[in-house]
Structures are given as structure tokens and as C-alpha cells.
């Protein structure tokens, strides 16, 4: 089976700084893949290049066999890649339900998704546990709820692949557990997931497979247990001293 997302030789340079150098990564349909690495290893840059925020300096990205390298963010979203941001984001001045309604309004052109029945905005809010807050202004939500709303927004855009950038950052243990419970259900609904984080505990809970980035290069890729036992990974990730 061919992977849903295939990244080949992806590079990104900002002036003289190389953020990514020749990264190859394949995401298989239906898995939850974790991308880990220390701060500045290129994780978020990888997301930003895949989602069209940055143009790659080299390499290619193909999604379901279609080349999407260098497409604009909205086009990538319409192609079926949803993503959430490291900073929890919502349309603060609009009501929670309106937020999710907007999120679902601009993806009908996505031919792949339009044939499936998709949950209504309210059902999505129910899924993430925010239905009771549907009429509140998004700006007044506490941080944990804002993260969940971000997830609902990304889901409303009918993704086949969902990229989560540090989804648990700033959440307490209870909120993190709730989020893990939600994300684990996604492959069952036909949504492939790729998570970036440096929280190893979270990654062990979520992912069977991990890819490790360091200084913009992939240094390991495989089953979570094997990757975490890899001395190379231990060295860069936990620091040579440990």
C-alpha cells in the first residue's frame, strides 16, 4: 500500500540557516505517527513546509499520490490535510459554534471528502466535549478548551490526514488524557494522524511509530520501542550526559 503522505528529500533554508536537510518521511494510511526531536530540530518547520506556510528549498511532498509541493495553505487544506497550531488558535471574536461552522464551509470542494457523511459542527463540538459552550465567544474559553476547539476546527475541515503541532502543550494531565483519548479514535474514522511533540510520555501513549529529527535531518524512524532504545536517539534527545 502506498503511503498517504510521502516527503522526499525535503529541505528548507532560512538565509544561512538550514532548518531541514533532505528529510524523507512516509506516513502510512491509518497510523498515528509521532515526529519527535529537541527544540530547533526542524519539527515545526517540517509541518510549515508540508502545510504550505513556507516554500521548501528543495524536495517534494505528495499527498495521496498527488504532488502538493509549494501549494498555498488553503489549497493544502482543501486537498485534505488538516492541521492544528502550536499556539492554540480560534476566531476569538466569534461564537464557538460559528468557529466550527466556518471551518466546515470551505472544504466542500474537496471531492474526496464530500461523498462521506461528515459530523455536523455541533456533533464535532460534542465529540471534543465542548457542546455546552457552543454559544460562548471563543475568546473567553480557557486554554484547555481552546486546544480542543482547535482540534474540532481541524476536524471540521474534513481532513484525511491531520497534523497536530504540540497538541498537549499547556494542558494538565487530565486534559492531556482526554486529548489522547480523542486522537486515538481518529484512525477509526478514517483520519491518519501525525503528531509533533517532544513530550515522550505523550508520544509513547499515542504512537506506535516514531520518527526523530535532529538539526533538520531524520536520524531514526521505526517502532516506538525500538526508536527509544536507539543509542543515537538517546544521545541527541536526552543529551550526551544522560
Amino acid at each position: 500500500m502506498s503511503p498517504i503522505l510521502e516527503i522526499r528529500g525535503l529541505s528548507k533554508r532560512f538565509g544561512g540557516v538550514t532548518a531541514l536537510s533532505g528529510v524523507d518521511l512516509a506516513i502510512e494510511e491509518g497510523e498515528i505517527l509521532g515526529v519527535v526531536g529537541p527544540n530547533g530540530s526542524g519539527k515545526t518547520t517540517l509541518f510549515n513546509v508540508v502545510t504550505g506556510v513556507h516554500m521548501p528549498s528543495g524536495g517534494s511532498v505528495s499527498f495521496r499520490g498527488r504532488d502538493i509541493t509549494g501549494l498555498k495553505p488553503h489549497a493544502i487544506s482543501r486537498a485534505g490535510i488538516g492541521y492544528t497550531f502550536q499556539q492554540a488558535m480560534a476566531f476569538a471574536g466569534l461564537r464557538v459554534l460559528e468557529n466550527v461552522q466556518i471551518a466546515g464551509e470551505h472544504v466542500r470542494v474537496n471531492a474526496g471528502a464530500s461523498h462521506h457523511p461528515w459530523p455536523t459542527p455541533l456533533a464535532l463540538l460534542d465529540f471534543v466535549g465542548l457542546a455546552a459552550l457552543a454559544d460562548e465567544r471563543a475568546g473567553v474559553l480557557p486554554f484547555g478548551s481552546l486546544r480542543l476547539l482547535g482540534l474540532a476546527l481541524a476536524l471540521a475541515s474534513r481532513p484525511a490526514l491531520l497534523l497536530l503541532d504540540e497538541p498537549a502543550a499547556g494542558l494538565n494531565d487530565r486534559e492531556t488524557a482526554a486529548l489522547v483519548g480523542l486522537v486515538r479514535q481518529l484512525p477509526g474514522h478514517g483520519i491518519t494522524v501525525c503528531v509533533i511533540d517532544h513530550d515522550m510520555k505523550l508520544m509513547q501513549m499515542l504512537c506506535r511509530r516514531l520518527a526523530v529529527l535532529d538539526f533538520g535531518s531524520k536520524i531514526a524512524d521505526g517502532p516506538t520501542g525500538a526508536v527509544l532504545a536507539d543509542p543515537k536517539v538517546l544521545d541527541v534527545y536526552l543529551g550526551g550526559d544522560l
Partner: protein
Amino acid sequence: MIASRQPNGSAISALRSLLPVLVVLALIALVPLLSPSNRFLSLAISAGINVIALYGLSVLFGQTGILSMGHAALVGVGAYTAAILARDLCTGFWLALPAAALASALFAMIVGIPSLRVGGHHFVIMTFAFGQLLAIVLTNGGDYTGAATGLDLVGPVTLFGADMSDLTRYYLMVVAFVAAAAVASWAIINSPYGRTLRAIRENERLAASLGINVGRHKIGAFVVSGIFAGISGVLLAHFLGHISPTQFASFPSIYLALMVMIGGARLIAGPLAGGILVAFLPEVLNLDPVQSRIVYGVCLIAVILLLPEGLIAGVGQVFRRLLASGQPKQEREELDTASTTPSEVRR
């Protein structure tokens, strides 16, 4: 359950926002019964013509969150289109309307495509520069644009055979156009399109991540505001009978931005309130032009600091507080506290 209740509830509350505006406009339409002076009518017509452009600006600034500091240029394109068509093709008022709307929309697109590639403050500067540029082009346009002298516009405005050039009739016609502009702006604000524009205003990156083509929608909003401006320009040209480049340069543009900010760009009553207030404030206070500019400046600073959502939203806030507290005697105190709340809520 909530889902079935929601659209109904918001449709009614949306209508509730439009109704006061239409009632006020109906009352304004009755003013000629009081046999007002010609000076009052002229002033009111100018204000009304501005308000039409302001309704377009409210879609751009209030909904989409982008501010044009060259909006008078779009009005100018409409006015010159009307004048040139009348001179070269003997086109009357009614045919000039769609032509000018189209011309202003096109000009907005031409300005918008390069300007909106750069965001935020740069767009403000770009529109300002384009506004100045248009004035320079018109001034150097030779006989075609009438150079610095401008163009005369002759020919009566008729509606169903009736001559509308008479001041009172023109006044009534402008009021009708203002009502149409208010309804059009209201319809845009309450449509899914308006909601998309608000999403862009709130968070561009998030909007793009959800499949919204941010660039195209921003240019679209600018083009929509251009249509309003073009129509406003035709009414202006036929009202004044003579147009010249300075009318559409930087000062009028700044005034338009000021009016929409003072009135409040996000509420449907805002443009009407801003347009009327800025037009009649110097009359009521008996100010000369220099003094009135100072007053406008102070007003703008006060509104930005105290009532960031504009005068109408601020007044509404005060009213709600008065009703809630039931202590109308402490009006001054209430005013002070109420005026600080919008900024607190927003932050």
C-alpha cells in the same frame, strides 16, 4: 436542538440590528416636511453620499479588518467615470451607476492585488499612496480629465420622467440610496460570506488552514467596498455638477476612515452615525474648518481609546448598563465605567 434554534435566533437578532437604521432613515426622509434650509439639505446630501461609501468601508474595515486610507480615490473613480461618460457618450445618471460601480470595482482590484500581498499597515500606506497617485494622474490628465480644474457635469437626473435635480428630491433619492446601501451591507454581514470575512479578520493563518483563500477574499472585500464607493461617486458628481482631483485626494480619504471609525465599523448603524456626526458636528458647534479638524482628531483619539468599537457600540453599552443597574441618576459615573468596558472585553 441547539442547531435548529440557532439560525432562527440569529436571523431575528440580525433583523433587529437593521430595523432601527431603516426607521431612522424613514424619519430622515420626512425632514423636508419641516421645510429645512437649502444649506441643511446640501449638507445632508453630502453626508448621505459619504454614508454610502462608508457602508462599503464597513464591509472592508469592520468585517475583514483591513483599512483603506485611499477610499476617496474609489469614490473619485466613480465620479470621473460618470462625468466622462456623460461628456463623451451623453450617458445619464442611471447608466452611469453600473458603469461607475464596475470602474471602481476594477480599480479596487488593480490596487488590491499588489497592495494586499503586503498585509496590515503596509496596505494602509499602499492605499494612501494609490489615492495620491490617482489625484496626480487626474491633475495631469490634460483635457481628458480636465486637469486641476476638473470636469463639469451637465444634464438632469430624471426618475420616471420626474426631474430629480431639485434639492429636496435629490435629498430623498440619496436617502433611498443610503437605505439600499445599508441593506446591502447588512445582507453581506449576515451571509456566510460575511462570516468568512470575519474569520479572516480574527485570524488569517487559522482561516487559511481551514481552506479559506485569504488573499482572494481580501481582494473581494476591497472590490465590494469599491462598488459602494463607485455609486457614491456618481451621486456626488451629479449633485455637485463639478468635480476636481483634490476632492478625492488624501484628506477626504482620511475623513472617510475617520467617520467609519467614529461611528463604529462593525455595527450596521455605525456608518450612518459616523457620517452624520462628522458632517454636522462643525455646524452644531459652529466651528471653522481648522477647529473642526482639531475636534475630529480629538474625537478619533477618544473613540479609539474609550470606545474601540465605535460610538454606537459605546452608546449601546451605556444604555445596557443603565437599564441593568436601574440607576439613571448616576449617568456620569456609568459613562465612565461603561466606556472602559469594551476595551477590557476585547483584550
